[in-house]
């Protein structure tokens, strides 16, 4: 008879342990879906400096909560690590590394005339008062930031410089929001934060 009670106790313990393990697993491990925008591309995923996985196509992985770094490898891309965090729920990560700066600089040479023409179209009167710096292409070459400096600005009579942000959509460059002295996420609500930060940090070419 006593054996029966021991059996019941073990059964209850196993049930409880299974429940606890299930709850712990559900809270700790989550599905992360990866989308690779550049192909062919391989990406090494690390956590605390140790490799966790390597992917080369769109896939899903089960990963524990925590911070991860992803190192993409492909032709003409910026191979800087991309960080992502798994924090209590399933998530998706789109890997769209920017084109490397050398390739972007070369692309700018072919795009600059179209960019300048789009600025003139947007501000036909006003822009004649400004020097438009050559600026920078960002991301996949579809974002552009530059500085506008008053031609009449002198050391004795300094004037504010403006940051302009443009985007290329369907082969056409367009000014996004309004040029600002200080680009922020509030005055450029349509622009990704990394582009805004690049625009803010961009030094004028005419000092």
């Amino acid at each position, binding site marked *: 008879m006593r054996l029966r009670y021991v059996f*019941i106790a073990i059964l209850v313990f196993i049930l409880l342990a299974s429940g606890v393990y299930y709850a712990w697993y559900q809270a700790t491990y989550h599905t992360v879906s990866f989308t690779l925008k550049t192909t062919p591309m391989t990406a090494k995923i690390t956590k605390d400096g140790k490799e966790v996985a390597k992917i080369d196509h769109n896939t899903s992985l089960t990963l524990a909560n925590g911070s991860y770094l992803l190192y993409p490898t492909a032709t003409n891309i910026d191979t800087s690590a991309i960080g992502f965090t798994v924090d209590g729920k399933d998530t998706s990560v789109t890997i769209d590394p920017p084109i490397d700066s050398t390739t972007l600089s070369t692309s700018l040479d072919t795009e600059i005339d179209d960019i300048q023409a789009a600025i003139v179209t947007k501000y036909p009167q006003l822009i004649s008062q400004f020097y438009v710096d050559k600026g920078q292409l960002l991301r996949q070459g579809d974002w552009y930031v530059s500085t506008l400096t008053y031609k009449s600005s002198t050391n004795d009579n300094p004037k504010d410089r403006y940051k302009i942000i443009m985007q290329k959509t369907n082969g056409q460059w367009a000014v996004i929001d309004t040029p600002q002295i200080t680009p922020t996420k509030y005055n450029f609500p349509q622009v990704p934060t990394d582009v805004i930060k690049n625009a803010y940090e961009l030094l004028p070419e005419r000092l």
Partner: protein
Amino acid sequence: MSKLTNYTRAHPVGFTMSLIAFVVVALFIYSFYGVIAYSGKVKVTVTVAPSDATIYVNGDSTNAGTTYLRPGAYTFLASKSGYKDGKKTVVIDDSQKEIDVPISLTPESDDAKKEADKNSAAYLKNEGLAGKQAEADGVAFRDRNTIVSKLPYKTLLYTIGYQSDTSDPSGMSIIITVEANEGMRADVVAQIARWGYDPTELNIQFRNYRNPFQ
């Protein structure tokens, strides 16, 4: 004698173990339910004076006491005949662990005034809670906008200040105001960056300024 008593006497070990197993399983289920039911919610304690006033949260009738709400904006309305309605809008965010919503109704009719006099202790308690909540809001405001400890910042050439962002109903957002001469404004913003704040994350407005591109 009942079957349960017979069983208990005949199988004391079995009965005790079954009871313990039942209690452990019940506690486990209760804890698990608690984790799921209150996950992502904030504890909100609504107190109202007089205590028998009807309370509505976003138009739905509710009771005074503790409830658990997900982050978001909520309008608490309390009403009772003879009293002016009491209304309070509260924005709950993830960072809050618990929040008090004290609502005191202003008596208008003579009967209500007499009743309010009798309930003065409840009104006093509500005022104390309101003061405590205002203090907690002040701490939360300073934690969220640490830059205010540097402001206002005045030099001979410029001033950096701040004002409440009225577009945010929580009252927790600010607008950084910069007053500077033409040609100096970007340098003033650089001062904010030197304090360790990222200007691109701040809502910055220039005084006495018109953007020529607008």
